[in-house]
């Protein structure tokens, strides 16, 4: 599922940001927004256009967990394994997610629907364990709620339903 990189589009993204300093992360964020991940070709264009060495761009792209160099699935499932979530049973939630999706942490399902990732803190520790699916925060998740969350994503993404992502009753959304 390698994305086709449009040179003009990447150049437009680079042009929007300050190329001298600090703008690199914002550029990469926008590139990831456009392609779902950071394609190699796009990184090369960014490096060239922003007048940075490819090593620097690659270093930043691999440093932050938010960036992915691999194509990701349609839905992004992100489970928090930070300390607060961990003590409230996040490892069990991740295990359940892995079992339901039949993939390991960091992998994408064969049908390209889901990508499972873990992060080390989302900054909303009081709501833990947290699972973020496509930007929607599900709080106080337990093993039993996992199935519901995944189901809600599947139904929400069906073409005839344009409504906002469904949520099960014991699951609330919270903004960061």
């Amino acid at each position: 599922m390698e994305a086709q990189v449009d040179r003009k589009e990447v150049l437009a993204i680079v042009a929007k940001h300050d190329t001298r300093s600090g703008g690199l992360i914002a550029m990469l964020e926008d590139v990831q927004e456009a392609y779902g991940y950071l394609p190699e070709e796009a990184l090369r264009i960014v490096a060239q256009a922003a007048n940075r060495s490819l090593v620097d761009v690659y270093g930043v792209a691999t440093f932050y967990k938010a960036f992915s160099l691999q194509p990701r699935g349609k839905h992004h499932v992100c489970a928090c394994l930070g300390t607060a979530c961990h003590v409230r049973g996040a490892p069990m939630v991740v295990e359940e997610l892995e079992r339901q999706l039949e993939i390991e942490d960091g992998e994408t399902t064969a049908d390209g629907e889901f990508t499972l990732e873990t992060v080390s803190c989302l900054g909303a520790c009081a709501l833990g364990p947290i699972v973020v699916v496509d930007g929607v925060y599900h709080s106080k998740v337990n093993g039993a709620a996992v199935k519901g969350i995944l189901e809600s994503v599947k139904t929400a993404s069906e073409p005839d339903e344009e409504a906002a992502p469904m949520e099960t009753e014991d699951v609330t959304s919270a903004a960061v």
Partner: protein
Amino acid sequence: MIHLTINGLAVSVEEGATVLEAARFYGMPIPTLCHMDGLSPYGACRLCVVEIGEGPRAKMVTSCTYPAEEGLTVRTASDRVIRARKMILELLLASCPQSRTIQDLAAAHDVRQQRFRQEHDDCILCGLCVRMCEEQMMAKAIGFRHRGEKRDIGTPFDKHSEECRLCGGCMYVCPACQLRCTYTDTENAVCGGCANLAPPCVDKDPFDDMMCSMAPCVACEIKTD
């Protein structure tokens, strides 16, 4: 001129000098691994730690990155410094037990035991090669990648970099891999000296995991041992 005290000796150095430069100029040895003249100081190996300040306010700093200040008191070999240095060496030795440079340094600093599990990382992330590539070779072909325990040094996407001219500068400065012999992988070998010269004294199979710096030939050294 800046006036400071190093090991009780009142000295003066030019403005902009680091504590390391000052100490070395006045003949006080401070061991280093990641420092090299002509490359920017980096403070990664922590071997050059010294103690500055007095009494309870004394603290440890890396002398290669610490600028000499007016009235500074520096101790380059206090008990605390020696203890820290030995611990650092022991840890470095655990990550790169095969490095000749680190072995020699450890021996010179009386490190007699190895309490940590050997990792055989072949890299201490000192960044010498990265700085060499960028600052002296003007190439910037290699750099730091990933983070945390996955942090390593290499080219983007693990592909041969267009900026790399195979100058070998990175291997020349490396304290851990020191022109790691690539004979068994001749396709990607930078030097290939041993393969080309085909020293008749060597049975090539044990070359697999050896350090080769060609002068003097390691194989010959081992032979004569």
